[in-house]
């Protein structure tokens, strides 16, 4: 019973990945549009995209770290 609850908690923590997935998807879509409109500015767009993706991805990573700690600490 206890392990099941811990597993559910870790699963809920990993749900933060949804936000990161949606965010990176939107960012990449917009970046593709921007490059299609202005192909010569792709260097700057790429840089902004990587920064945005790194920041958006961080939320997913935090969720993963929390899930990891839940499993390791509460086991």
């Amino acid at each position, binding site marked *: 019973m206890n392990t099941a609850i811990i597993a559910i908690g870790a699963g809920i923590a990993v749900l933060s990945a949804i936000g990161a997935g949606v965010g990176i998807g939107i960012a990449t879509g917009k970046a593709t549009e921007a490059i299609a409109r202005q192909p010569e500015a792709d260097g700057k767009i790429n*840089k902004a995209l*990587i*920064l945005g993706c*790194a920041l958006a*991805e*961080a939320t997913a*990573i*935090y969720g*993963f*770290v929390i899930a*990891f700690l839940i499993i*390791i600490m509460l086991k």
Partner: protein
Amino acid sequence: MGNLSEIINEELQVETVFTIPIFGGIPVSESVVVTWIIMAVLILGAFLLTRNMKLHNISKRQAFAEWIVTTLSDMVEGMVGEKGRAFIPYLVTVMLYVGVANVCGIFGFKAPTKDLNVTAALALMSILLVEGAGIYYLGIKRWLHKFTEPIAVVTPINVLEVFTRPLSLCMRLFGNVIGAFVIMELIKTISRNILLPAVFCLYFDLFDGLLQAYVFVFLTSLYIREEIE
């Protein structure tokens, strides 16, 4: 499944390899030893590449060394800006170290960045450099005044940022490396042939590891740029 959690637990533990018998014993953990190996490899590589350099009629080896240096420092200069040129050697060094540290899992070493202490130390170095650069370039008065910009109400948030920035740098690197490692172990457990882990290894170990080194340096140089301008 039980086997997997054992492997992960074993990899997470920071083992003490040996103890230096001075000052009552300094424990040396595995990540420090792997860091020494990485240092030795990088120093040896740099030494071999830069031996008997010439001004004219350069050898292929010297051309390669020059290509590495100019590419990396141009890349970092684009991030840190004209004013932050003094920080390029440090940032490129961190990039090389983190890149090699993330990738060295392929060669059977335990990646040092999988140890939270290593990423915490890197993040701490970054934030000290950022704040130190702010004090050096702006002077204490303007550095302190920068906390109240753009309006005085945001001062607590600006002060909080000094602590959240290294925390997020540290957790991002650690979480990415450990996440890639856990996923690789899962794939290795479920797949019967060798092809599937090999393909995913390219993404998780090589691409993600190098990307994280880039992102770490990118964010650090962004903070520096923001601080000194």
